[in-house]
């Protein structure tokens, strides 16, 4: 088990290293492709040659690529100083540089957006897991029934309708037409839990609908497969009641594959639920990423990418560890 965990952890670190390489590559290549100069992007086109040169030195853009990458890595791990002669700016770890647009330090800027994305993703995740898994299990147990067909039809709709459609539909019905809910808005949980929840309920439900649909289908398929397994027949042959057969023997292996999928989905969402944030005008990481891409704000783009990658890798590490506990074949294999 320990060697397994260590292997997974080393794997995660290596993956993150590759991610930094790729994001750094973006930083380096994008200006070359678009024919723009990072220094100019930063200071603005009207600046005089001397100050552009100063910025170039300060950002280290004149250094060899490998040195630039080294400084970039060092900045992430230990922080770095941007220096042009006596003009020194210290950027503490994890340093992701400064926004070209607002001059703000990227990491704190993104941390400010994180609670929005976190609230959105986690709240929706709770909903979709509860709804998706339970309807999937019931569908599998009542395979072919009216209920099963209704759930699967609904799920098909959920999978095929894009979020900007369901999101706008939900907004126009519940906010503008019926007026049951306030417009989506983020209030910190610690300021007012009630407005936190009421401001997020529409995005939660919209996002959860999409995922719950996928999870219901997946759960149903997994459960049906598991129910056909020989060891389920063994459980019945022992004389166990259906409740134990389903609740203990079938769910355990029927739901395990969902852990992987859930890890991937949650990891991806934590890097920013771009569409949902855009539809509901929530200022989270996804929204920030969108703004940064529109404004060619490379450091912010890279920052969001790094954070998103971190979440995916981190959650996958957790999934791997969980698997070690759930599945003895992984642990002892």
């Amino acid at each position, binding site marked *: 088990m320990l060697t397994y965990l260590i292997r997974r952890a080393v794997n995660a670190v290596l993956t993150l290293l590759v991610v930094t390489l790729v994001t750094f590559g973006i930083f380096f290549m994008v200006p070359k492709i678009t024919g723009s100069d990072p220094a100019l992007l930063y200071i603005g086109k009207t600046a005089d040659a001397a100050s552009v040169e100063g910025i170039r030195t300060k950002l280290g853009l004149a250094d060899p690529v490998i040195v630039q990458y080294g400084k970039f890595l060092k900045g992430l791990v230990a922080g770095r100083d941007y220096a042009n002669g006596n003009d020194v700016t210290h950027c503490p770890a994890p340093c992701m540089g400064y926004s070209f647009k607002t001059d703000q330090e990227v990491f704190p800027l993104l941390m400010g957006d994180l609670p929005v994305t976190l609230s959105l993703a986690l709240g929706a995740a709770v909903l979709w897991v509860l709804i998706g898994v339970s309807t999937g299990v019931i569908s599998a147990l009542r395979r072919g029934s009216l209920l099963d067909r209704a759930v699967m039809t609904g799920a098909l709709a959920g999978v095929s309708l894009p979020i900007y459609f369901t999101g706008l539909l939900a907004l126009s019905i519940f906010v503008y037409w019926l007026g049951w809910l306030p417009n989506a808005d983020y209030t910190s949980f610690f300021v007012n839990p009630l407005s936190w929840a009421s401001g997020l309920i529409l995005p939660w439900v919209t996002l959860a609908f999409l995922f719950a649909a996928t999870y219901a289908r997946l759960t149903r398929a997994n459960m049906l497969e598991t129910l056909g397994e*020989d*060891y389920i*027949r*063994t459980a*019945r042959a022992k004389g166990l009641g259906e409740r134990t057969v389903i609740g203990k023997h079938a769910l355990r292996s029927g739901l*395990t594959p969902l852990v992987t999928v859930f890890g991937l989905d949650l990891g991806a969402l934590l890097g920013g639920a771009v569409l949902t944030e855009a539809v509901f005008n929530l200022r989270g990481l996804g929204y920030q990423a969108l703004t940064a891409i529109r404004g060619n704000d490379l450091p912010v783009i890279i920052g969001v990418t790094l954070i998103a990658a971190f979440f995916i890798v981190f959650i996958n590490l957790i999934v791997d560890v969980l698997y070690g506990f759930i599945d003895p074949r992984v642990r002892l294999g």
Partner: protein
Amino acid sequence: MSTDSLAGLTLPGDRNTRPFLEVKDLTVRFETDDGIVQAVSGSSFTVERGKTLGIVGESGSGKSVTSLAVLGLHRTRSNAKVSGQIWLDDQELVTATDEEVRKLRGGKMAMIFQDPLSAMHPYFTVGSQIVEAYRVHNPKASKKEARERAIDMLARVGIPQPAKRFGDYGHQFSGGMRQRAMIAMALVNDPQLLIADEPTTALDVTVQAQILDLIRDLQAEFGSAVIMITHDLGVVAELADDVLVMYGGKIIERGPATSVFHDPQHPYTWGLLGSMPRLDRDVRDRLNPVKGSPPSLINLPSGCAFHPRCPYAGRNGDRSFTEVPELRGGAHAVACHLPPEDRRRIFEQEVAPNL
């Protein structure tokens, strides 16, 4: 346990009139997308306590489906239709409630399955699965008692260091060990009816012999009725008191093992015997002993289902092609249109010399 003490539990009028297990006219069909699978048609047989019934037949002949029907394990499959009667110790199981059958499963009647790896839950330890089997039927037993019982059973089936292996998972056991553990699980409640579905197919020859010995010893000890299902006629010859030969979901020959082996009456049985397991033969030959392929259970051949493969099909006009032969005869019954004298002659002159 003696027959007399158990007879006391039965209704006075039925006392000692019914065999311990009596299956009457059992029919199992599955509704599938391709059509109706007629997996077992009109099977009737009996097994007494302390006796062993061997069921032989090619792959797909309905052996497993028959045994699953006895355990009531088709009930959870919505596409299965079971009819006929199954009497176990004077209780009718086809019409019994789910709950009544559940209580018998794993207790009074137990089953050892074909593939021991897939029959074990991958996420639970071998020991805990045996404990679970014990505690369903002994709800008053403490965890500790159940654990001791499970370890005891593991020891009895010949697993070394049972207390240590108790906490292992199925995948940590070798094939033979797994099958032993499955046997321990099946026997943990001293079943009076044990169905062993090809308990040795996946194992090598030495382990096979050990497992069969084990089942025989346990049977002698508990006086249980045993149904032994196998492709392997050698196993049946060694263990069984009576034999059923199945073909295409039907019993085509049924009788005392010695009689079926020494005086086989059905052309299909001749084919089977012609390929009695001999070590110089390839396993594949043994599993597919008669030329041609097993019939489709969705579209059974007309008349005698064996006719497309039977060398004697034309000898009796076209009856073999049009009329389903009934299982006829007393203790040793056969389903074939050929007159018994003809069959005896063919066997003695054409078949026996080649066996």
